[in-house]
């Protein structure tokens, strides 16, 4: 028995083209798993057909939960239900309109041997979502839209949103069913025991996309297909909203917001959560006064909007800055732009172009000023590439991109460019407080340099500074005193008025302020330590001591 059942199922596994074989819908029947025995379904089907429900919705309300049943083409489902109906009552009333009007696959009329054809009006419960939108043509349309948007995808996730009127209609049908068929509907809850419209749609549409385009519908895929179904307000279950609205005590709502009360009332009523809340509280009788059940029939189906989004990908690397005129991020002061480019743009624009992305978010392990160079191995950075259309890059392509960026300008150079995962991004900001950085500063002294004094200064071990927030950043930072450490210092003398000081400091130390003292707000500072009028002419960052991202060898012969 089980194997016979399985054979039936494998035979049925060709939802897209029923022309491929000629079979009778009777074969589907044994595999149905409904609330009650198959021969009791007839009256329910009758009632639902009279209310203008589509076949898939009828199956939902009969309790069917098998994905493959829903994936069958409409005609097969129609025939199956017809045969079930006839089974129950031989004198079933011919309730639906008869016209020869089938959607897709109509060319095979002869092969189908249909006895009755049912005109497909928009179903009152799903408003067409499980009808026209479950046809191959819609899946093709979605796929073409994706291709047009330039997205490349191997797996996807479907996010479906339905208009609020669905909630009212579902409630209406359920109430209607409970009234007419206490058994079995009194024992079940719509939320827990019935397949929802969204679920069924995802099964069918997802199944078709998978089969046609060899992609995988994966929950939590990085590529999202967002389908929003819309229903014009004029056709919504207006009875419910209008009637309910009129019966709301006006003073409560009007008092709160003066002129926009009208709009607000309609807006609050139309939100999904408020509708659910209302439906939970009102009784069937009350519902009957506000709205009709079964739900009002309509001549229109839903329309749809579709949008695609791929989750951000992350690229990391290290950059060197050899120019003293560009800032790290685009600098706009009072509406005008300062500097013709920035480190961020030089790095990110080529990446955005290559991945066909919407934009990027740039962050790095600390920053240097406009007039400060970044030397040595460079500063680690991460670029979050937003909504990339072609995110897949192999190592060779990444190296090419790196070369492209490096060749484009002399102002910056990058290295160790690599793709990373989202959870690696926290490594960038690790140890912001306890990492060290080394600097080299060119210092000018108005008096003749006392070499011994400076050398003795360098021989001292760790020195702790107390730095008040420098005046030059005070407009955007909190006023505070920050203790910072200087671990090492080394001096190199150039001429009687100039020397070069190298130092290794704690991350977050304001080196310029250490040299000139910031009007005495950084203590100790070089002016007090040397008792001389010193000032800083140039500053370079020699290294940022963070051991991440990992070095990438430029050997292209490595795989992947």
């Amino acid at each position, binding site marked *: 028995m089980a194997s016979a059942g399985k054979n039936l199922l494998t035979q049925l596994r060709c939802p897209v083209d029923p022309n491929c074989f000629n079979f009778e819908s009777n074969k589907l029947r044994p595999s149905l798993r409904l609330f009650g025995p198959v021969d009791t379904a007839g009256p329910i089907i009758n009632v639902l057909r009279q209310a203008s429900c589509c076949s898939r919705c009828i199956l939902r309300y009969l309790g069917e939960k098998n994905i493959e049943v829903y994936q069958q083409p409409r005609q097969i489902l129609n025939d199956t239900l017809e045969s079930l109906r006839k089974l129950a009552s031989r004198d079933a009333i011919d309730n639906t309109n008869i016209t020869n009007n089938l959607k897709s696959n109509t060319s095979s009329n002869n092969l189908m041997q249909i006895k009755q054809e049912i005109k497909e009006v928009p179903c009152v419960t799903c408003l067409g979502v499980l009808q026209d939108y479950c046809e191959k043509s819609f899946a093709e349309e979605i796929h073409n839209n994706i291709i047009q948007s330039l997205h490349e995808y191997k797996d996807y996730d479907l996010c479906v949103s339905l208009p609020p009127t669905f909630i009212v209609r579902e409630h209406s049908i359920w109430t209607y069913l409970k009234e007419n068929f206490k058994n079995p509907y009194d024992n079940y809850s719509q939320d827990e025991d019935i397949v929802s419209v969204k679920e069924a749609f995802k099964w069918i549409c997802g199944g078709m996309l998978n089969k046609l385009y060899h992609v995988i519908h994966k929950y939590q895929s990085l590529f999202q297909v967002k389908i929003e179904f819309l229903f014009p307000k004029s056709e919504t279950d207006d009875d419910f909203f209008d009637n309910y609205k009129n019966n709301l005590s006006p003073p409560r709502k009007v008092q709160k917001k003066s002129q926009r009360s009208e709009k607000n009332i309609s807006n609050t009523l139309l939100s999904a959560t408020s509708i659910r809340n209302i439906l939970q509280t009102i009784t069937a009788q009350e519902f009957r006064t506000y709205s009709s059940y079964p739900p009002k029939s309509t001549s229109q189906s839903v329309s749809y909007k579709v949008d695609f989004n791929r989750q951000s990908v992350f690229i990391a690397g290290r950059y060197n800055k050899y120019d003293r005129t560009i800032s790290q991020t685009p600098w706009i002061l009072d509406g005008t732009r300062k500097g013709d480019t920035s480190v961020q743009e030089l790095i990110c624009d080529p990446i955005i172009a290559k991945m066909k992305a919407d934009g990027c978010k740039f962050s790095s392990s600390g920053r240097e000023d406009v007039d400060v160079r970044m030397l040595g191995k460079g500063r680690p950075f991460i670029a979050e590439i937003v909504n990339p259309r072609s995110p897949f890059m192999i190592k060779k392509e990444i190296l090419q991109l790196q070369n492209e960026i490096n060749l484009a300008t002399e102002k910056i150079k990058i290295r160790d460019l690599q793709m990373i995962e989202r959870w690696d991004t926290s490594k960038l900001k690790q140890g912001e407080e306890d990492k060290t950085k080394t600097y080299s500063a060119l210092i000018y002294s108005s008096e003749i340099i006392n070499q011994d004094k400076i050398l003795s200064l360098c021989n001292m071990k760790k020195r702790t500074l107390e730095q008040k927030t420098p005046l030059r950043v005070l407009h955007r930072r909190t006023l505070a005193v920050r203790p910072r450490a200087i671990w090492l210092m080394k001096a190199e003398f150039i001429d009687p008025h100039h020397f070069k000081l190298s130092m290794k400091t704690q991350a977050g130390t304001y080196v310029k302020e250490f040299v000139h003292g910031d*009007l005495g707000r950084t203590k100790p500072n070089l002016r007090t330590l040397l008792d001389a009028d010193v000032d800083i002419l140039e500053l370079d960052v020699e290294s940022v001591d963070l051991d991440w991202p990992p070095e990438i060898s430029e050997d292209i012969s490595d795989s992947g």
Partner: protein
Amino acid sequence: VRGKPHEDLLILQHSNKICVITVAPSHPMLQCDRKITDVDFQVTPKLNRLKNKVSGKRKRGAQWVNETSPLCHITCNDGSKYTIDSCVKGKLIEINELLIDSPNILLEKPGTEGYIAVILPKKISRNENDENTMPGVDLLSKESYLKAVAERESD
């Protein structure tokens, strides 16, 4: 300032609009060889500049000053007293606490460690002229100041 002759103040302004109030070289305090005995931040019976507490980026809790608000009273060893006014309208961010312990730094290094206070001026809308960040106050540029001082000398 305030009608008292020659009591000039020098305001250093950063490109981020923050102002540091200092005593100008032409101020009488700096002319003779005096010593400062006291710097009093209790400017009025109710207001003590030392109690100024600022928190956060927006500098909440700061005392508000306008062009004529006094910042401190200075007494010299010859008995002469001077009042330093903020010449800028805005939030008082910081007063130089070094002046309490070593007030004479004001005489030794008026333009650097001897500063009086740091003020964040009130933000002006972008429509106004960029240069005129403190409308309604007659602040002289360096050239006009030097000219005025020269004129004084010749009187």
